[in-house]
């Protein structure tokens, strides 16, 4: 038995350390530990602040899923103060959220995850002409022809399209060669490029993928242009409690939003659709299929057992979350819990997530058994976020000193993440969870009038199942599945952006230009004491912000974050979290080069700043 430590885990957000106990002869991971090694105390910094400022502070939890926390926070504060935002604001926020998800997924796949699958060094062996031919085949084979409803189709032809000429791939190869030969590998330095997993793909796939890596490095920005138009910047666009600040007017030359500004957003949405349809989806399916064909269907872990989602994309404005209004009219009803999906959709069980569950202290809560925190008045208990406590209690490692770790203590406390639970149980969140939930609900007849999003999700799953020639429960609950579904979701989100853009235009056309509801702006209109929750399907999964407001000031603020759900430390009763389970569900070939461990952990798109905050 060997204990393998990877710290820092890179190509993720933040500070993550993993340790695994590995049986070197079988390659089996007997135990795994995931630790968030940094904590900033943002929940404490929220105390005594003006709730109208909350979005800005808490948005800084993360600049990768930038805006996720702002939007969730706005929902929480608006829920507490019972503010209903105008329709346009809902549409605009949805456009921003959708574009954020696509951009986040694209960056994750190409720049954070891809180098686990493809290698620039292998790309050197490719034949450029064969690569050009391969690019053609890939587009023909793997382009999923699904599309959401498009009211105003302004895109004359696909502007973003993969180049598939020999000369292009030769030029790309030459560039890679130059880097390699310079001896200054920069970001490509010191990786285990000799790991056997890099031989799974033919050199031409490596060359194509590395070329796309570079192209996407420069293209991803165009996906989130809407943030700059509506929120003034990206990362970290600006918002306002009660709606948006970007007033719409066709009568004023200086208005934040007018026709020209809408055209900028429209162009960006068109670009997004092209990038996803012609690059992301074909690339991921091509690589995924090759891996699956070679039998790589491990790394599922907790996804097989339990996933949770909250649902998102309110079709129209709603009056609150705690009162159930939010859940009444969602475009993506991924709210609920699915257990045992790996046994097939028939055998899987679905639990509804009801609005009253939000206030029930036994349904959603967080424990700190193995976290570097303590609950002074509730030792050993799990706390509901409205009563949540964030109090640091660092205990150090198992071996080494407090400032120089050898190994962390899986029996004691070992992470700055809390352990979120649903009814005392662990659950995985994320694109995969959302897809499992929607698919299960649909197949079980729980979505009698499915939205176009839900239909598209099911169609995608079935199409991919056909391509891979595997049942959804087999390919989805794997590390490849987790990564592939993220690409599928990007396609859906690209069209969600378009969908809400169309709705925005139509609504403006009908004469409604309101973007902010300022009736409750003045603190004197607020109740002395109130609570709110904001639910949001972030790129990495179900996110919730919980706020308690007293006398116009925040008196408690808690965020329960997707990566907290996934990367959390174990729990005496509930068992392991999703990262630990997934690592334990993964085979490792070479103990000194645990590429598979990194790959499976990265298949979650870790965000540790999010997770610990």
């Amino acid at each position, binding site marked *: 038995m060997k204990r393998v*430590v990877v*710290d*820092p*885990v*890179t*190509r993720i*957000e*933040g*500070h993550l350390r993993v340790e695994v106990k590995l049986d070197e002869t079988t390659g089996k991971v007997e135990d795994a530990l995931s630790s968030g090694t*940094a*904590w*900033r*105390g943002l929940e*404490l*910094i929220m105390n005594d*602040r*003006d709730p109208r400022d909350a979005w800005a*502070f808490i948005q*800084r*939890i*993360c*600049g*990768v899923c930038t805006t996720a926390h702002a939007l969730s926070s706005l929902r929480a504060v608006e829920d507490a103060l019972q503010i209903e935002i105008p329709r346009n604001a809902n549409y605009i926020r949805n456009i921003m959220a959708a574009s954020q998800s696509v951009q986040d997924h694209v960056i994750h796949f190409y*720049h954070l995850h891809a*180098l686990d699958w493809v290698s620039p060094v292998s790309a050197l062996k490719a034949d450029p002409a064969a690569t050009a031919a391969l690019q053609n085949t890939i587009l023909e084979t793997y382009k999923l022809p699904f599309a959401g409803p498009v009211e105003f189709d302004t895109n004359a032809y696909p502007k973003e399209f993969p180049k598939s000429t020999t000369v292009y791939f030769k030029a790309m190869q030459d560039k890679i060669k130059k880097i390699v*030969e310079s*001896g*200054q*590998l*920069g*970001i*490509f330095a*010191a990786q*285990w490029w000799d790991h056997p997993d890099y031989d799974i793909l033919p050199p031409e796939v490596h060359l194509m993928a590395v070329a796309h890596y*570079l192209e996407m490095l420069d293209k*991803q*920005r165009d996906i989130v*242009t809407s943030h*700059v138009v509506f*929120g*003034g910047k990206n*990362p*970290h*666009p*600006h918002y306002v409690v*009660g*709606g948006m*600040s*970007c007033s719409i007017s066709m*009568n004023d030359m*200086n208005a*934040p939003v007018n026709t020209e500004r809408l055209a*900028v957003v429209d162009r960006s949405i068109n670009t997004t659709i092209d990038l996803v349809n012609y690059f992301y989806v074909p690339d991921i399916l091509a690589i995924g299929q090759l891996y699956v064909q070679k039998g790589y269907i491990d790394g599922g872990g907790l996804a097989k057992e339990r996933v949770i989602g909250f649902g998102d994309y309110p079709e129209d404005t709603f009056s609150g979350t705690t009162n159930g209004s939010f859940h009444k009219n969602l475009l993506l009803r991924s709210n609920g819990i699915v257990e045992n999906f790996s046994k097939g959709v028939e055998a899987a069980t679905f639990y509804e997530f009801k609005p009253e569950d939000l206030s029930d202290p036994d349904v959603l809560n967080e424990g700190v058994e193995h976290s570097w925190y303590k609950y002074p008045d509730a030792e050993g208990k799990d706390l509901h976020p409205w009563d949540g406590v964030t109090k640091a209690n660092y205990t150090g*490692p198992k071996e080494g000193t*407090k400032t*120089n*770790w050898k190994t962390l203590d899986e029996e004691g406390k070992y992470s700055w993440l809390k352990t979120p639970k649903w009814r005392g149980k662990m659950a995985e969140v994320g694109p995969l969870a959302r897809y499992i939930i929607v698919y299960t609900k649909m197949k079980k007849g729980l979505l009698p009038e499915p939205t176009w999003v839900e239909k598209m999700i099911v169609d995608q799953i079935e199409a991919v199942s056909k391509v891979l020639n595997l049942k959804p429960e087999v390919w989805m609950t794997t590390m490849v599945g987790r990564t592939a579904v993220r690409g599928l979701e990007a396609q859906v989100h690209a069209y969600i952006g378009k969908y809400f853009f169309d709705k925005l235009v139509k609504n403006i056309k009908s004469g409604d230009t309101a*973007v902010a509801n*300022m009736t409750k702006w003045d603190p004197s209109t607020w109740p002395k004491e109130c609570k709110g929750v904001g639910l949001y399907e972030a790129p990495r999964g179900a996110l919730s912000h919980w706020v308690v407001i007293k006398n116009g*000031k925040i008196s408690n603020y808690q965020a329960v974050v997707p990566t907290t759900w996934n990367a959390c430390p174990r729990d005496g009763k509930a068992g392991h979290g999703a990262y630990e389970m997934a690592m334990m569900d993964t085979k490792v070939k070479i103990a000194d080069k645990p590429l598979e461990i990194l790959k499976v952990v990265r298949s979650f798109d870790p965000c540790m700043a999010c997770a610990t905050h």
Partner: protein
Amino acid sequence: MKRESMWEVYLRKGMNRRSFIKSCVALTSILGLSTDMLSTVVAAAEKNALPVVIWLHGHECTGCDESFLRSETPLTSDVVLNMISLEYSHALSASAGEPFEAHLHEIMEQFKGKYILAVEGAVATADNGIYCMTGGRPFVEVVKEVAKNAAAIIEYGSCATWGGIQAAKPNPTGSVSVTDVVGNKPIVKVPGCPPIPEVMTGVIMHYALFGQLPPLDSEGRPKQFFANRIHDTCYRRPFFDAGMFAEKFDDAGSKAGWCLYKLGCRGPETYNSCGNMRWWNGLSYPIQSGHGCIGCSNPNFWDDAPFYNRLPSYEPVGDIDKVGAAVAGLTVAGVAVHAVASVIQKKKHQADGNKPEDKKVD
């Protein structure tokens, strides 16, 4: 600053050709290249190198990395592949764990005194720095170690430059700026939460084009990006001067794009390129999108909140103008009372037989 090739570094260190070739062999095999590539690797290593950049992450949100990646001019790929050699980055580097840390130390040794250290994030110092651990060690130790032999340090973002969000009250982790822990070094401060993408890459572009750090102001910020206040470069300034303000979000003034001063805009005291360059090559900036600046490139701007008021009212005192007026009223009343009392006292004094102009004498 002339950049040394790997071979020159070896010469300077008095190492011989054999150990140089040995390094090249190691490099070739790490890359999984065949041995006949060795001569090319050796030749390349003898040539002039790109400036080596080590990018460290402390207490941060990676918004600064993300902003860096959004750069259009120069394009991110051009920066990362042709202007610098980014040898260590938690965000982009292929490698992880032990080999990655070993690489860091090799690079630090090989380019001692030559590499540029970019830091994103604040330095957590409370309780010996245990709130931010990386590679099993406190970040504060790592940053000090890497800073020691850096040629220059770039502090990216308000976290690195001033402490940022985690340093806002009550600063549970004792977070401070990089400057606060690394001591005497050439430091370029690039504040903003995050900074504008083209400002981030612009600093590197400047170095690539001119071979030196850009001219800095007294605060250590590049003058070409941080000299002017947003208020003095804001396209809404004519409305400020004319006294035309948005009074509430989404009112007629908001739609007309009038000045956001009365909604708390911090443009009048914020030094950043938002007003002139704007975000994404002139596309917009918070003010253009109807929201006041929150001063995100200013020191400790988080504790200048609430953001929607030019004159923050502090509990339990409230609005200082109302307090001032009330205290002035009380003062006048107090003065009146004192005046009456004085008159009474004087009358009494006279009734005791004293003359009006009589004074106390020794």
